[in-house]
């Protein structure tokens, strides 16, 4: 187990270095220049050249990479070109929103996707199953922005139950009550993902239900509920849990549309806006953190297999 963790960590670090090079190279390969974006329409070539020089954008890309990587190792991700604040601060502002949004969304996904998936599997082939599968299909197919805008129209503009958009930090005035800003976005974000987990749970349950040991358990006369919970669910969860890990990571990095519709200051929107502005340090910093997050979650998911299924050998 210990050796496994060390080996995996080593591989993760290599992946991280490779990823950092790829990120840096790609960002600098796309045309466009942050200086033009900053100075605006009327900038003269002299002004552009002067600002490029001051910001160190004239150095060769390799030199820029080494400087950046060296600083990143010391925890300094540089200064945002657009905001003129440290990248770490920009990420911190976005991370709180993204992590809380992902957590609340996960609550909806687990609370809805898993039990309903189990129900659909138990009632396989019945009207209930067909109805639930149809619902899952619908939720998975409707675009998030559409769901988001309708949630806003009904629950914010119409009924006034929730705020329409934005998210003030829970560490500011309002405290935990500010979480209400994340209810509608998390529902919009949960819809397609819960549907996927629902379908995955159902499929996985049905797979396991066909195993010999389940038939044996039933033949032994074990109570049906016990067969479902102990024999089927426990084994079916393996696939579902690994999906949780990646869903969580995806919720943080791919919530761009939801963050845009609800005007949330999250990481996804930050990175997309930064790409449009060619704010290199922010793009590099955010993507690096997201890569780290995927690596950690990947490792955690692998380790959790062992906890869920003692047969899995971590070698």
């Amino acid at each position, binding site marked *: 187990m210990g050796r496994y963790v060390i080996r995996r960590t080593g591989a993760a670090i290599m992946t991280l270095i490779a990823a950092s090079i790829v990120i840096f190279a790609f960002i600098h390969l796309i045309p466009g220049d942050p200086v033009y974006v*900053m100075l605006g*329409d009327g900038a003269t070539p002299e002004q552009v050249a002067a600002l490029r020089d001051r910001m160190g954008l004239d150095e060769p890309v390799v030199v820029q990479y080494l400087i950046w990587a060296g600083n990143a190792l010391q925890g300094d991700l540089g200064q945002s070109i657009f*905001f003129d604040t440290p990248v770490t601060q920009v990420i911190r502002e976005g991370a709180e929103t993204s992590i809380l949004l992902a957590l609340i969304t996960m609550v909806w996904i687990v609370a809805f996707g898993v039990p309903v998936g189990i129900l659909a599997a138990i009632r396989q082939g019945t009207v209930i199953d067909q109805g639930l599968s149809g619902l899952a299909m619908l939720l998975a197919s409707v675009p998030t922005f559409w769901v988001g805008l309708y949630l806003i129209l009904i629950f914010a503009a119409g009924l006034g*139950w929730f705020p329409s958009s934005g998210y003030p930090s829970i560490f500011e005035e309002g405290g935990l009550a500010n979480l209400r800003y994340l209810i509608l976005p998390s529902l919009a974000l949960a819809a397609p993902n819960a549907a996927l987990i629902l379908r995955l749970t159902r499929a996985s349950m049905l797979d396991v239900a066909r195993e010999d040991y389940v038939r044996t358990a039933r033949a032994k006369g074990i109570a049906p509920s016990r067969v479902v919970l102990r024999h089927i669910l426990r084994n079916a969860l393996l696939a579902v849990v690994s999906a949780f890990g990646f869903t969580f990571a995806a919720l943080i990095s791919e919530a761009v549309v939801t963050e845009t*519709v609800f005007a949330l*200051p999250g990481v996804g929107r930050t990175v997309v806006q930064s790409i*449009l502005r060619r704010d290199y340090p922010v793009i590099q910093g955010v993507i690096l953190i997201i890569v780290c997050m995927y690596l950690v979650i990947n490792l955690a998911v692998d380790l959790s297999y062992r906890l869920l299924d003692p047969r899995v050998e971590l070698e």
Partner: protein
Amino acid sequence: MKLGKLLGGIALAALMAAPVSAQTLRYATIGEPPSLDSQMGTATLASTISQHMFETLYAFDAAFAPQPYLVTGETISDDGKTIVMTVREGVKFHNGDTLDAADVAASLSRWAEHGARGKLLELTSAEATGDMEVTLTLAERNGAWKSILAYVNGGPVIYPAEIVSAAAGEPIAAENYVGTGPYEFGEVRPNRYVELTRFEGYTPNPAESDGEAGTRVANFETLRFIPVPDVGTRVSGVQAGDYDYAEYISGDLYGLVKDDPAIQVKISTAPIFGLMFMNSDSGPLATNTKLRQAIMAALNMEQALQVSVGEPELFEADGAFFPEGNVWHTEAGTDAYNQGDPEKARVLAEEAGYDGTPIKLLVSTNYKAHFDDASVFTRQLADAGINVQMVVVDWATLLQLRGQPSEWDMFMTHHGSIPDPVLLTVLNDSYPGWWQTDEKHALMDRFTGTSDLAERQAAWEELQALIYEQLPVVKVGNILSYDIASPDLTTPWERAPAFPHFWGASK
């Protein structure tokens, strides 16, 4: 059941949460502003925000005439090159210092050297020739000098001398945002908001409020500018009472919001207009005026505007660069506008010796209107036998590519309303397109060589006619953007100015 309880509980918490103070204006912006250092950038949003903090020596009244603001008056030498201004007494900066001639001289000098529009005035020197007296020396007489000094966007706002001297060519850092305006800098939270707070030591201009000129009263304690990139969310945010004001609502939503009692519509007084620049430096259009005229003859602007804007109340197919009612309005040359005549275009292209070489039209997808206009034009030009190849990139790439003459033959952009033709990008020799003909230079000398309004108007009339003859740029048409406000908000203006200001506003 539990889920329902949880939801209900959260909804209850939402209802019980403290109401947002009536003392805060919540302005939903389309994005985030770059640096708020007004001298250095021309982003509209940056000016909208920063005009509450930083002030200019002159300010436009409701009729767009520049009035003394941080100065009390001036004397001008006969040759028009020396201007002596008197600085208003007792004006306090946000840091507690008092404004004097040294601050004004330092601010103007830095702007002239490094500012986004600093070269417009051709300022040779700005010196403090007394405690409260500043002397400007211009290289040439400039009839537009007062308008240039009054324009906040990329213009010469006044900072304390020590801050502006230390910053030199760098944008001023947020902690040094010190001005004389009714609001002072609060904080910038990336992706969350920019906040300004009322400056209690503000020294108002004694004149009666008139447009941006005269006294400015800060009723709101706080102005908060919140990025809400999705237009649908900006609208429902105002409907839900989460924002007091939201900018840039799209034309397709106009029908929806104009009759909504929960929304005030504020149509802009300042139309923006699409522009298609032609490359006067290299490529097939560089010297071939006839081919440009063929292109112009093929274009039907009405069609393009119908596609890009849609709502007829929100666009005007108008070839004049300044709208009717403006002192600079003239119809000179506009016969060539909006012809939409493919047959004439075909004949002209033949006369021009056009051999079917692809003409590269550079356009970005970031602005939907640019892309829509370009698509319609490409189709119209194809009907006239002119082969246009669209080069579609994002805005940041376009800004870089258009600086390289070999990369494009035409590119799409837009222009905001401006108080004086001198600010038109096409009149700037070094702006991409690089229109630098002798006829233009002769007219420009006449235009800037006098401060007599009638003479300047006459020169501008000929300049506009020349633009329609030599076609360094094609104007697409006026787009009236509009903002929305909650019904409780009262603003000191009826229709939205180019940079909406909120002194004098309340709710």
